């Protein structure tokens, strides 16, 4: 929202154009989760457009539970020094101090991520006050536009991270696409009610209706494990792909990383897709029964969470992330 056309040579940083512009530069590319310098170099050499530096990839967070937090700045800085492509890092939902620390690390993008344990069940980070841009997850257009209002400069589907199962990412991508189509045929008076029902700012709802697209770039994320998964998401209209656990939980990370990059570039060419899908070795095992899995990253949203603002009922302890957060002795 900063003015742009001032004369003289005052350079303006942290403007919407600059923040959203980097996401546009990443379009048609693959962003890979990496846990150390070695993996970051593998990702860069495979043609990744950016890396997401984190201590535990989502599959491990699912398995091990515990509170998942921002990574050690030292690890992020090491990765920053090792590669020339942009480096992203995750902050907990609502944890604006983690975001401040990541900004001080000069990461290129912050992912306010549902994969980490929520720090605030009601409020997300006010991303407008930061100079570093943010990417946020969304399941539907209401959630997407709420994040944009808070200042997100890039969106991604939430999917269900660490499962190696694309079904949720497909659901979120298709939901957003069909809602965009629905908005674009609405009359002007219907848009006011649509904004109310979507619980999103009217101006942003109107933007989507007028332009037939989201205000910012939207990537696929959460469950991409194969080149075919990546190309599927591209054909569904996504602007690019995040691959989390899919690469470094597979048998041959180098080959799989390069294959997914190639699949995203040539996503409309089945012959290339056949070539790159051949002989990659086993993909990550993954989780087929997402609904039955005790860990649910995708439904974490500030103000939307089941127990937001109220004392949660007493629960049985299973040892996963969710129950440990609420593993209290509160009486019902």
């Amino acid at each position, binding site marked *: 929202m900063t003015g*742009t*056309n*001032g*004369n*003289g*040579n*005052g*350079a*303006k*940083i*942290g*403007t919407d*154009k*600059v*923040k959203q*512009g*980097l996401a*546009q*530069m*990443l*379009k*048609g*590319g693959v962003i890979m989760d990496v846990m150390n310098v070695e993996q970051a*170099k593998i990702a*860069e*050499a*495979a*043609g*990744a*457009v*950016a890396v997401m530096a984190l201590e535990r990839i989502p599959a491990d967070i699912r398995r091990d539970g515990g509170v998942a937090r921002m990574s050690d700045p030292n690890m992020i800085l090491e990765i*920053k*020094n*090792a*590669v*020339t*492509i*942009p*480096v992203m890092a995750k902050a907990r939902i609502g944890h604006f101090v983690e975001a401040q620390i990541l*900004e001080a690390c*000069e*990461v*290129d*993008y912050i992912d306010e991520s549902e994969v980490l344990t929520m720090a605030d069940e009601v409020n997300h980070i006010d991303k407008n006050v930061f*100079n*570093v*841009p943010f990417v946020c997850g969304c399941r539907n257009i209401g959630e997407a536009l709420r994040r944009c209002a808070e200042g997100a400069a890039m969106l991604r589907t939430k999917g269900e991270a660490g499962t190696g199962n694309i079904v949720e990412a497909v659901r979120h991508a298709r939901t957003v696409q069909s809602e965009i189509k629905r908005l674009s045929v609405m009359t002007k008076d219907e848009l006011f009610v649509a904004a109310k029902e979507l619980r999103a700012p009217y101006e942003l709802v109107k933007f989507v209706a007028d332009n037939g697209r989201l205000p910012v770039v939207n990537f696929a994320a959460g469950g991409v494990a194969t080149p075919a998964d990546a190309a599927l998401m591209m054909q569904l209209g996504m602007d690019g792909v995040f691959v989390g656990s899919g690469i470094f939980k597979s048998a041959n990370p180098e080959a799989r990383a*390069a294959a997914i*990059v*190639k699949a995203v*570039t*040539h996503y409309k*060419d089945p012959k290339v897709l056949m070539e790159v899908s051949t002989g990659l070795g086993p993909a990550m095992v993954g989780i087929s029964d997402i609904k039955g899995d005790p860990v649910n990253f995708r439904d974490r949203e500030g103000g939307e969470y089941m127990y937001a603002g109220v004392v949660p009922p007493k629960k049985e302890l299973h040892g996963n992330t969710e129950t440990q957060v609420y593993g209290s002795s509160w009486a019902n």
Partner: protein
Amino acid sequence: MSTNNNTITIGVLALQGAFEEHQQCLEAISPNIRTVQIRTPDQLESIDGIVFPGGESTSMGLIGDVTTGLWDGLRNFVHNSGKPTWGTCAGMILLAERCIGTSAVITKGQSLIGGVDILVCRNYFGSQISSFEMSTPAPPAPFATVDATDDDDGKKDNDDSSFPGVFIRAPAILTAPPDVQVLGTVVAAPCRAAAVVLRELERKLEAGENVIQLGVVDALEERLMER
């Protein structure tokens, strides 16, 4: 598309990056302009000109390198076809003859198409947090006329003489020979990482590996002396 004679077809390299945005801008100029996405060498045959869009130059170079015949096809198009070529940001890096600040991982360095005799430094300004917008001198007539809407009421607005420049993890052109026409310049010190690269280059130059004058490095040394 009604009269094929008037239609100009512009190819936009679509390996990665902001290729759709370039297509939209080109098609907005005139209904006679058609754009095609270039991903394979055979697509180069039918185009009248090519645009190398912005994006991640490392990725573009790597993706292009593993696509059979594409790099040779592009080199041939740029160097031998005599057709116009445009490079934006990362696309400009690909068109540079020399580039510094490439990744430590990629041993053979940035894969360049070449064609413009300039020396480019990648990520000159630093990380995303140092990315900025600023007014730059307006380009000369053939480019400036596209947006000339308020010409008729005299030149009261100073905006006519400036052009919005957006620098996102941007490269810098450090040297250009006299026969390259420079449309505008921005004075800026390099970021820490770029400064290290530039000083290393300076050291190599002093060791006699190559002879290029680098004014920027001199300015940097002065700044470092002040601290």
